[in-house]
């Protein structure tokens, strides 16, 4: 059972992601997470301001259940399946992060420099998480999908729009990581 408690290698995780996608299609649905954000806006009453959100959100109830499941899955993994919270990142990555101002990179699952309560209570820290979320939400719906819909489903279906989107994901990610993060932090 020890292997379950260790971090899972890529050749276990990748196939299990495909298996998750298989079950969603097998049960007549699709694999796409970011559309849930639209459903949540519709539930919140956004249909009063924009007719796009004026749809019957109950038809996406299955996807909200999927999301509820992922929350439970995160809880189970954290509570019972992850005795060691550290992330064994590359030594070079640790050094690079140290130069940017991230201390003890990889010692915890997430950096305090972004996710700690103290950070988020500061205006800068709050704006980083809020702004990052806005970019993710805006970009995913503009592109018509996120990592699940484009990078996994779309590429599996050999779709050109998804290839272009994934190239975009990398253009944005590389600009952020190499140019903007050293400026922001």
């Amino acid at each position, binding site marked *: 059972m020890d292997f379950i408690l260790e*971090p899972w290698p890529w050749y276990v995780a990748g196939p299990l992601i495909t298996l998750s996608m298989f079950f969603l299609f*097998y049960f007549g649905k699709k694999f796409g997470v970011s559309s849930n954000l639209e459903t949540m806006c519709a539930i919140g009453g956004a249909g009063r301001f924009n007719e796009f959100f004026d749809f019957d959100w109950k038809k996406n109830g299955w996807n909200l259940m999927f999301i509820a499941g992922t*929350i439970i899955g995160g809880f189970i993994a954290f509570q019972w399946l992850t005795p060691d919270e550290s992330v064994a990142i590359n030594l070079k990555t640790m050094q690079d992060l140290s130069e940017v101002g991230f201390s003890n990179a990889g010692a915890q699952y997430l950096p305090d420099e972004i996710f700690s309560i103290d950070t*988020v209570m500061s205006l800068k820290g709050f704006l980083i*998480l809020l702004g990052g979320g806005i970019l993710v939400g805006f970009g995913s719906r*503009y592109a018509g999908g996120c990592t699940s819909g484009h990078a996994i489903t779309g590429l599996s279906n050999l779709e050109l729009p998804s290839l272009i989107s994934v190239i975009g*994901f990398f*253009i*944005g990610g590389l600009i952020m990581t190499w140019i903007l993060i050293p400026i922001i932090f």
Partner: protein
Amino acid sequence: MKHFRFLVIGVFFGIVLSKAEIISWYRIYEMFKFQSFHMYGVIGSAVILGIILFRFFNNGKIKDYLGNKINIEPKKKGFYRNILGGTIFGLGWGLIGACPGPMFILLGRGVFTILVAILGGLIGVLLYHAIKNKLPH
């Protein structure tokens, strides 16, 4: 409970992404720094198996639970929507190290500060649909 099976698939998916550290900000940073094969291996192996799986969907060898052919809805065509939307998404993914799925999995881990990012995600969606008519697609 209606849709219970999707809850179960979600639990499974949440555990997989947690255990493979795909929802760790450090792994995303490391990926964009090209300093680890881990994320490329995860996405690459998922896609290669996905290509094989979709062959079986498309040729009808694998049908859905009711015995119907599985159809994969094609993505919307267009260059600007994909390259610009993708780039905006990537900026956010690179900054907070979480795409929409991992945001909710992190919430389950008790990372309550991620609620700010989820709120941002909802604002971003509202914003897109408010100004989409002015954007190139």
